Structure formats: C-alpha cells, structure tokens
C-alpha cells in the first residue's frame, strides 16, 4: 500500500505561488489548522482560495483560524466564497485592492465544487436568477423555467479535515465539521487530509467512514480540537 502519511510541511512541498487551493470548513469549524500553518510557513504567494468564507481573523486572545490564517499572512490574492462578513481583514484587502473576492451562493458553491469532482460540465441552479449572482453566467431554460449554468470548480490542492481517518485515507468529519470537506476531497489534483484521529486500516467499521481514501493524496495527523 502506498504510504500517504506525511508531515504538514511535506504535504505542501509542491504548493506553488499562484496556485488555486480549496480549504474545507465553515467559519474555520472543520478547517485543517495544521495544514494552514504549514502553508503560512511555506509562504507561497498569490493563492486563489476557494472556501465557504474568509475564516476567522486574529483577535486579542487568539490567532487567526482556517482561511483567516492565509488572509492574515497576505498569501491570498483571490477568494471565491459565499460569505466573508466575519473576517474584516478580507474586507480591508478588498478595499485596498489587494484581495479580489468572488461571491457565490453557498449552495451553488457546494454544487460547483461537487461538479468539478464528479466530472460534470456544470449544473443548472435556480438560485440567483435575476440577481448579481447571474452576472457573467449563461441562463438556460428548462421546461419554461430559468436556471443559471454554473460551471465546475477545481483546484490544484484541497486542504480538508477529518475527525477519523485510516491510513489509506478513508475518512469522516464529525458533526458539523463536514461542510465542504467532502466535496473538496473530489475536486483537486492533490488532496491533503488533516486528521484528528489516525487509525489502522480495518480498525473501525467501514461504514463509519463517509468518504473513500482513494480521493486522498496525503494524510497528516495531529489536528486538535479548537480550544475556546
């Protein structure tokens, strides 16, 4: 069996300036913090980041979290997300022209990533028809109803987080940490999985894992629960 287990720094070795990456999680809940730290250490520039949001900014009591770490370090030149209101640093970056931001309805974002992973040429969604979300998109009419044709999203890297994974990369993300982690596992060239628990193959029942390890390129252990 191919050995997928790496340190976080090894896992980002081939990450390069200007690449497009996906980061799982929702407001940093379910984001792989070890992997974000490794990206910051590597210091790649001009990343396009696809994620639900801009993560959490640094506060007096804590460092930034999730995508917020990349934003705080100035590594992000473009963010494709559904909501960035909880990270004022994204707004600041947008104001001064350093950070471009494409806002996409959350459900459309999830489907576009899934379509990228599932080999679809796109999906037709009624969400956003007649609004700014339709700008630059083709409108397709099916049985008299209008839909936006949303094209698939793919990335060079996906950084995702599991609660339980085995050494082949089969994984599950507990409770509300699933979010974008499952669809992003399908949609990138290199998929790096940060996990809290790392199990031997066959140690847990197969049906406890929600996603197959065949999607996962590298596995990095040592994710810990966020301490409030």
């Amino acid at each position, binding site marked *: 069996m191919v050995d997928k287990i790496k340190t976080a720094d090894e896992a980002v070795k081939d990450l390069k300036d200007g690449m497009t990456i996906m980061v799982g999680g*929702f*407001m*940093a*809940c*379910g984001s792989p913090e070890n992997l974000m730290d490794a990206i910051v250490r590597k210091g790649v520039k001009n990343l396009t980041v696809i994620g*639900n*949001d801009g993560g*959490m900014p640094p506060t007096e009591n804590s460092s930034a979290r999730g995508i917020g770490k990349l934003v705080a370090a100035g590594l992000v030149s473009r963010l494709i*997300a*559904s*909501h*960035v*209101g*909880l990270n004022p640093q994204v*707004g600041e970056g*947008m*104001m001064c022209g350093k950070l471009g931001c494409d*806002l996409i*309805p*959350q*459900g*459309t*974002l*999830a*489907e576009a990533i*899934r379509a990228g992973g599932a080999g679809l040429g796109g999906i037709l*969604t*009624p*969400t*956003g*028809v*007649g*609004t*700014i*979300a339709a700008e630059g998109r083709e409108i397709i009419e099916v049985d008299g109803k209008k839909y936006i044709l949303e094209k698939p999203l793919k990335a060079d890297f996906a950084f995702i987080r599991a*609660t339980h994974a085995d050494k082949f990369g089969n994984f599950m993300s*507990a*409770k*509300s*940490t*699933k*979010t*974008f*982690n*499952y*669809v992003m596992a399908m949609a990138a060239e290199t998929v790096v999985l940060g996990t809290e628990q790392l199990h031997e193959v066959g140690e847990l029942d197969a049906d406890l894992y929600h996603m197959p390890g065949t999607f996962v390129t590298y596995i990095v252990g040592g994710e810990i*629960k*966020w*301490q*409030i």
Partner: protein
Amino acid sequence: MADIKHRIAKRVAQEFKDGYVANLGIGLPTLVSNYLPEGVDVILQSENGFTGISGAAEPGKEDVDVINAGAGYVTYEKRACFFDSALSFAIIRGGHLDATVLGAMEVDEKGNLANWIVPGKMVAGMGGAMDLVTGAKKVIIAMQHTQKGAHKILKECTLPYTALNVVDLIVTEMGVMEVTEDGIVLKELHPDFSLDDIKAATGCELIISKDLKPMEVE
C-alpha cells in the same frame, strides 16, 4: 424594540405546522423557535450541515464541532443528523424546507427580496440566503416595518435583489401581509396601529383583506 422583536417572532411561530422542517435566519428569526404553539413540533435545519439544531451552547460546555451558520456554538437535538454542504443545500434548494424565516432590507409587491447588499457598505456575501429563499416552500420575512422611518416594503426594491418572486408572507410589528399575484394583502393589523399608520409606513399600495383581523400574539 426587544418587545417588537418578540411580537414578530410570536406571530411568525403561529405559521408553523406540526412536523415542519424549517430554517431560521440568525437574529430575530431564531427567536421564533421559542414561541411554537403547543403540540407543534418543528425540526430546524442549520445550513452549515445539520437538522435538529437547538439553542446556544452554555459557556464552558461548547462542543467545538457544532456551530450554527453564524459561527455560534450551539446544541443539537437527539434526533439530529449531520451532513455535508452539498446535501445541506440539496435540502434547501430541493424544496425540503417547509419554511424559512429571514430578515429583509427591502421587499416589494412582486415578492422580490433584497437583503444582502447596501451600496457603499462592505458586501459580506449572500451566504445561504439566496438558496434558502429560492428553495423553501414558504418564505416568511420577519422584520421591522420601517428602517428609521424609511419604507422597506416597496413597489419595487431599490437595492440589489437576493431573489425574485419568492416572498410569501411579511410579518412586522404593525401587521401580517401576504404577497399575492395582485399585490400585498394586509391580513392582520396590530391593535397598536391604525390602517392609516400602516399605509403611511408602507411604500406601495396595501390591499386590505375583506377579512382583516387583529394581529394577535398573546
């Protein structure tokens, strides 16, 4: 103001039927779950990925793996089920929510909704709002009738749209209004206000229901 919020939430709660699956926006809409009528069991969905969301977590007892769509730590019911964003929005877009309750900046008589961009202000993003109002079977807007005296219920929205032709019901501190093909029909008027009060506070024609009732929340 607190009083007004609870009045609106109480009235919205009366719209819920036993067995409903619903999504409540952050803020005022979340209050609705406190006022569900006796015998009306509603399961609430959280768009970040679960059904069975319950109240805020007690400080010190947070499960950091369980947040709501506003990044607040919350609790969940025993019957909760967790899923990813793709399935979460399949529920939302696919018509599997009986109702969603959200606030609005503007609503117009065609049922168009604007609640995400204020020109000149930083744009936070639509998040899940566009999907919610497009997909839910019943879209209920819960809001104050005016914004510092300015009309919010209009002949035509002036702000960028969240979605077109989606609003079914508007509940404010002044009354309950249904969006119909003919325009906005005032179904209930709160006893604190006169017909002239609500007409003056509304930026489009209000059709007065033949069956106009007082808005009762207690």
